[in-house]
C-alpha cells in the first residue's frame, strides 16, 4: 500500500480510530498494529508476509535463547544464526541473480562454459529495511545493550510497524521496542505535528519528486539524444527527485507514527545544505549510515590497529557495502566507492565548521559556506548519475556527454511550461527548506505563531499545490531497495 494512494487514505483513519478506542489496553493496541501492518504489507503480495513472520520468529527465538544462555559459545552461535538467516534471506532475494551472473561472467572469461538458470525471484518490498531492523535487535541483545522482550506481539509490532516497514527510517530496537512496551496516550500537539509532517512529506513526494521524475525519466532514458546542458539539468533534477521521494517518505512515516504516539528517528537533516561529505553523511539517510557506523564501522575499527591506513580501508569497506545495500548492480558499488573517496577527502581538509547547521542563527550563509554547499551538492549530483544509470557504461557516456561541446547548447524542445513550473517549485522548496533547516522538518515551526487565518491559508496553499500540481504518480524509489 502506498502512502500517496486512496487505499491508504481509507486505511489510516480506520486503524487510527480502532487503535485509540482501545487506548487503555496496550496488548490490544500492539495487536492492532501487527494486524494492520500485515494488511499494509500484504497489500503488495500476501506471500511477502511469510518472510516477515519467519524473520520475526527467528529473531524472537534468538532473543529468548540469548536471555537464557550465559555460555559465550552458545550466545555466539545464536547471534550468528540470526545474522545468517537475515542476511541469507536478503542475499537470496536481492543478490542471488547478481552473484550468479557475475560468477558465470568470471568463469566464461576463463574459458569455462557454465549455464545455470537464473531464478525469477520477486524482491520483497522493503526487505533491506526490516532485515537491518531485526538484526539490530539480535546484536544489541547479544551485546547486552537491550533486554530481550518476552512479548511476542510487541516484538512483531516492532519488526512490522507499518509506517516505517518498507522504506525506513531503520529503527534501533533500543529506541523503538521500549515504546511498544509502555502505555501510549493520545497527545494533541504531537498528533497535529504528525499531520504537518505528513503534509510536508506528501508535498515533497507528489509535487517535488513526481514532477522531477517526468523529466528525469525522459532525460536518462534518452540520454544520447540530449545536449550536455540538458543532461546536467537531468542530474540536478534527479537530486531533487530522490531527495523529495525518500525524505518525503520518511516524513510521512514519522508523521504517521506520531499519530499513533511513537517517535521515530530523524532520517534526513537538510543534506543539500551540507558543506562537505562528512557533514553530508550525518544528514542523508541517517538511520542507515548510523546503522553501518555502529554495527560495522566501529567493530571494524575495534578489531584492528588504529592508524590512518586502517581508517581509510574501513571507510572504503563501509561505503562499498552501503552502495551494495542499495541494489545488486555494479553502479551502486561504484557509487559507494566514489562516496568513500569523497568522504576520505574531508579527513585531510582542515576546514571545520562550528555547527553542523549552516549559517546557524543567520539568514544567509557566508560566501565560503555557499561555495562549499554548492560544491558538495554538485559533486553529489555527479555521483547520483552513476546511481541512476542502468550500467557503468551508461553513466560514463552520460557524464562524457555533459562535458562535451554541447554543454552550452540548449535543447529548446525540452523547455515546456511543466519544466518551468518544476524549476520554480524547486526554488520555492529550497527557500522553505533553508528557513526551516534548524527544525526537524522544514515546516515544523513555520507559521506556528501566525494568526489562524494566515496559518490555515498557508496549509491550504500546500494542499492546493499537492492537489493541483502533483506530477504523474510514481512508485517510491527506495521501495526497490
Amino acid at each position, binding site marked *: 500500500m502506498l502512502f500517496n*494512494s*486512496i*487505499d491508504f487514505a481509507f486505511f489510516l483513519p480506520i486503524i487510527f480510530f480502532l487503535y*485509540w478506542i482501545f487506548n487503555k489496553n496496550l496488548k490490544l493496541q500492539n495487536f492492532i498494529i501487527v494486524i494492520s501492518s500485515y494488511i499494509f504489507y500484504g497489500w503488495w503480495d500476501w506471500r511477502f508476509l511469510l518472510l516477515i513472520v519467519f524473520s520475526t520468529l527467528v529473531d524472537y527465538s534468538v532473543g529468548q535463547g540469548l536471555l537464557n544462555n550465559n555460555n559465550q559459545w552458545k550466545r555466539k552461535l545464536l547471534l550468528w544464526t540470526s545474522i545468517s538467516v537475515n542476511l541469507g534471506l536478503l542475499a537470496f532475494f536481492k543478490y542471488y541473480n547478481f552473484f550468479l551472473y557475475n560468477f558465470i561472467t568470471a568463469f566464461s572469461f576463463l574459458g569455462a562454459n557454465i549455464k545455470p538458470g537464473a531464478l525469477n525471484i520477486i524482491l520483497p518490498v522493503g526487505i533491506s529495511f526490516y532485515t537491518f531492523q531485526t538484526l539490530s535487535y539480535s546484536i544489541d541483545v547479544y551485546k547486552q545493550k537491550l533486554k530481550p522482550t518476552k512479548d511476542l506481539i510487541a516484538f512483531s509490532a516492532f519488526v512490522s510497524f507499518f509506517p516505517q516497514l518498507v522504506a525506513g527510517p531503520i529503527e534501533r530496537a533500543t529506541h523503538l521496542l521500549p515504546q511498544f512496551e509502555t502505555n501510549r496516550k*493520545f497527545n494533541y500537539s504531537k498528533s*497535529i505535528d504528525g499531520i504537518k509532517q505528513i503534509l510536508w512529506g506528501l508535498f515533497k513526494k507528489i509535487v517535488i519528486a513526481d514532477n522531477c521524475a517526468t523529466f528525469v525519466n525522459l532525460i536518462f*532514458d534518452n540520454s544520447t539524444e540530449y545536449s550536455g546542458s540538458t543532461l546536467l539539468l537531468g542530474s540536478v533534477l534527479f537530486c531533487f527527485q530522490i531527495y523529495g521521494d525518500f525524505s518525503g517518505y520518511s516524513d510521512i512515516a514519522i508523521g504517521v507514527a506520531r499519530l499513533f504516539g511513537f517517535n521515530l528517528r530523524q532520517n534526513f537533516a537538510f543534506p543539500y545544505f551540507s558543506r562537505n561529505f562528512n557533514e553530508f553523511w550525518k544528514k542523508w539517510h541517517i538511520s542507515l549510515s548510523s546503522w553501518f557506523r555502529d554495527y560495522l564501522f566501529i567493530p571494524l575499527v575495534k578489531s584492528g590497529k588504529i592508524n590512518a591506513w586502517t581508517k581509510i580501508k574501513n571507510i572504503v569497506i563501509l561505503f562499498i557495502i552501503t552502495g551494495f545495500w542499495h541494489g545488486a548492480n555494479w553502479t551502486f558499488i561504484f557509487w559507494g566507492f566514489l562516496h568513500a573517496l569523497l568522504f576520505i577527502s574531508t579527513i585531510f581538509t582542515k576546514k571545520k565548521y562550528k555547527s553542523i547547521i549552516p549559517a546557524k542563527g543567520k539568514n544567509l550563509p557566508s560566501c565560503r559556506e555557499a561555495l562549499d554547499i554548492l560544491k558538495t551538492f554538485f559533486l553529489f549530483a555527479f555521483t547520483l548519475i552513476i546511481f541512476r544509470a542502468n550500467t557503468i557504461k551508461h553513466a560514463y557516456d552520460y557524464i562524457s556527454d555533459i562535458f562535451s561541446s554541447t554543454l552550452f547548447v540548449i535543447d529548446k524542445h525540452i523547455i515546456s511550461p511543466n519544466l518551468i513550473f518544476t524549476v520554480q517549485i524547486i526554488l520555492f522548496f529550497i527557500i522553505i527548506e533553508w528557513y526551516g533547516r534548524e527544525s526537524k522538518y522544514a515546516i515544523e515551526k513555520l507559521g506556528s505563531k501566525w494568526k489562524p487565518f494566515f496559518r490555515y491559508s498557508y496549509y*491550504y496553499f500546500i494542499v492546493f499545490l499537492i492537489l*493541483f500540481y502533483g506530477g504523474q504518480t510514481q512508485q517510491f524509489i527506495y521501495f526497490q531497495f
Partner: protein
Amino acid sequence: MKKFIFKIIFTITPILLLLVIIEVLYRDIPNVYKYKKKYLDNHSNEIETLILGNSHNYYGINPIYFSKYNTFNASYIVQRTFFDFEILKKYENNFKKLKTVILPIIPMELFFKKIENTGISFNPSIHKYRIYYDLKLPIKYGNYFEVTSKMFRLKIGLSDIYNYLVKNKDLMTTTELGWGYNFYSKDAKDLERTGEHMAKQHTDISYPMNELSTGIKYNIDILESILKWCQKRNIQLFLYTPPIYESYRKKINPNREELAFRSLKEITSKYKICTYTNLYDNLDFNENDYYDADHLSEIGAEKLSKIINKKIIKLYEH
C-alpha cells in the same frame, strides 16, 4: 482526541467538498467516451460496420468515406483489444445488422502488458470505461471517480471545466461518426523523432524479451475470443496493420515483429470469418500522410478509409 478529530474534519471538509464539486462538474463535460456510448446505446441496432481499436483507427479511419454500409467508429486512444471485446459483449444483443468489425493490429502492441493480477489490459484511462461506458471491470475503487484516478490532473480538470462552462468551448475531438479529427497535417510532428520515441515507448511498455511468449499469448487469446465471438454470429473480422512510418519500423526489434506476424498468421488462418490486410510498410503512404510516425493525419486518414472501404465492399462481392 475530540479536539483533534474536530480540527481534522474542519480542515478536510472544504477540500472534500471541492473535490466532489469538481467531480460533478467534470463528469458533466461532454467527452468521447460518453458520446460513443450514447451513440451505441441508440444506434447499435443500425450499425453494419463497426470500427474498434485504438488511436490508429480513431485518427485513421473516417466512416464518412464508407460508401455502402452504415459505419460507426467506436475506437479511441489506448483502447486495447480487451476493451473492444468488452464493448462487443456489452452490445451483443443490439448488433442486429452488424456484418463487419474492423480492428487494427500493430506487431508491438501484441506484447502490451496487462494489469498485474488481473486479465485487464493496461490502460491509464481505465476508469473512464467504468464511469462513462459503464463496463463492469474489476478495478480498484480509486478508479470509480475521476478525481481519484491516477490519470486525473486537477489543474487540467479545472481548465476543462472553465473552458466548457465559462468559455462555452467545445472540447470534443470526434465527428458525429466517431472519427478523431484533431490530428491535422498542418500540425504534423517530426516523423524521425516521434518514430524513434514511439518505438522505444512501445518496447518499454511491452513484455521483456524473456517473457514474449507470455505477452503474446495474453493478447492473442483476447483476439481469439473476439474471433470466436464473431464466428458465432457470422460477423466478418477485418484485421489490418495500418501504415507506420519507417523511422518507427526500423527501430523495432525484428524478432518481436517476426513473432507477432507469425502468431497473427497462425490465428487468422484458423477462422474463415477473418481477413487480414497488411499495410504496415505500404508504399502508397508517404510522409505527407502522417501526423506522427505511427498516426495518420486527415490526409492519410482519407486515403486509408477509402482503401478499407473498397476492401470491405469487395469482401461481400464474393
